[in-house]
């Protein structure tokens, strides 16, 4: 059992949620509530990571992070290290790969709020920010929760993008799913089996948690 890999996986999952939720809430709400020019394009771009093969996504992310790209240069001059094959680079790649898993459920969550309810909140004297925190967030909560859990579970299982962008550096970019592959290559079936079972348990536990929480939300709301 590669505990370091498990730790990297869990940190990556948590970090991805931390980065993506605020962004997903912003973009999901924007797409749900506002009509604007180019909305269809934005929605298509959001979905792209879902349909691209992970290797293709990984390739473009590597190009984007590379020393010759503005992003890669900016990161290097700020932090003093390169983005590819670092935990930070992997985290950024994971966040981008998970955009569709986060934005879409959140968008559906905000779309489910009737526009009359939004208007009623305004007529109750709530400022836009109060409407957002006291009415919209609680009502979109099931969507936000689904987004967080999907992103977490998907990050734990991500393989192609991780290998392309992060490589296989122990303690830095070697996640549990990469470690399993690594052990299999070395004919260490036992370790691979333990780690695979760990991921399976985490996956089942996550799904049970989702179901329980969403049922509780359901009871609260009817």
């Amino acid at each position, binding site marked *: 059992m590669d505990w370091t890999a498990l730790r990297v996986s869990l940190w990556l999952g948590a970090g991805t949620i931390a980065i993506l939720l605020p962004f997903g809430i912003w973009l999901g709400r924007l797409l749900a509530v506002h009509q604007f020019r180019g909305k269809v394009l934005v929605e298509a771009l959001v979905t792209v990571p879902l349909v691209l093969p992970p290797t293709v996504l990984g390739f473009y992310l590597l190009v984007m992070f590379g020393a010759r790209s503005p992003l890669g240069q900016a990161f290097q001059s700020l932090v003093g290290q390169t983005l590819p094959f670092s935990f930070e680079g992997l985290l950024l790649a994971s966040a981008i790969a998970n955009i569709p898993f986060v934005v879409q459920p959140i968008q559906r969550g905000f779309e489910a709020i009737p526009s009359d309810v939004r*208007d009623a909140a305004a007529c109750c*004297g709530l*400022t836009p920010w109060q409407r957002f925190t*006291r009415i919209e967030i609680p009502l979109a909560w099931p969507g936000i929760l689904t987004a967080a859990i999907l992103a977490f579970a998907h990050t734990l299982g991500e393989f192609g993008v991780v290998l392309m962008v992060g490589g296989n550096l122990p303690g830095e970019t070697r996640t549990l799913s990469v470690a399993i592959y690594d052990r299999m290559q070395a004919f260490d079936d036992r370790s691979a089996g333990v780690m695979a079972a760990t991921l399976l348990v985490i996956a089942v536990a996550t799904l049970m948690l989702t179901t329980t929480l969403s049922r509780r939300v359901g009871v609260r709301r009817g």
Partner: protein
Amino acid sequence: MCDVADRRLSVRILQRSPIPLDLDFTCDSGDVLAIFGPSGSGKSTILRSIAGLYRPEHATIRADGEMWSNTASKAFAPPHRRAVGMVFQEYALFPHLTALGNVMTALGHRPSAERRSRAEELLGLVHLSDHQDRRPHQLSGGERQRVALARALAREPAVLLLDEPFAAVDRTVRRRLQDEIDELRRTLEIPLLLVTHDFDDVVRLATHLLILDHGRAIASGALADLTSRPDLPWLRDAVGLGSVFEASAVRRDPEHGLLALTFDGGTLLASDREISAGTKVRVRIAARDVILATRAPDGLSLHNVLAGTVSAVNDDPALDSVVVQIAIEGVRLLAEVTRDAIGRLGIGVGTPLFALIKSVSIEILADFRQT
């Protein structure tokens, strides 16, 4: 105290698209202006513009002595800065909050220590004290409507807007809610706007009426004047003609289930067992229930024989019947009779006539029982 002009709502809306609107109206405090028209005529858009939820091309909206919208000077107060109480068609309650929580949400202008007790008070006012901890899905349609009303009142609004408030409740609940709202408006002293496509709401609640068609007011004014106008074919299609006026219950005859009413034109006997003497009521008499006679008849089972003078005859060739308007002191009564009867009785403007009305034909609308 603010004077009446200060509390008046005045609205001027002009736009070409998407919904064409060309309107100019006012509503004084204590009045109930019903905006009546078919669906798609722009009724809800008017209310939404007043609430600041919609911005028409050109608008000047004044209420509570403040300018809420003025497109010419680019003045616009966002909805949360307008003291508006709005009851939405589907109530739009916050599903994650209890009835109490819903009402408390609209009490942000009060110190937080007072909000709970004030919300309880308001729920008591709409007879929902027992249900304050229920969530919207645990309430019936009528109860939700009451929560929505309590929430709208919680803002201490300068204008109360009701958007098809009874569309989603059944007839019995509707009657009760209509009465409750009528009772409330007597204590509120603010302009009240009611959007509806059901004439029942108009006759039971409104003091003033604006009839909307394709975004324009085809008629507007005091209800008593409009409902007696025989030249509104649209109204006639919608409800059949009738006259509405105020009266007071003076005497009850429990033995026969009769109620004596006095009004500007005299006394009427109505069939009613519930209303107690001393209450003010609104009475509606359908034009087709009024029989005309040139001489006072005798030997009839009828109670109500009123003497008056013909003040107008509206003969629309497209219709089989003729509408005769009879002035009985200050009240104008409408009678719908056949064209043949006009000839036989020699009815013209100025003809003295007797109007005969069965006591069961006198429809008593909102009664304002003390609770």
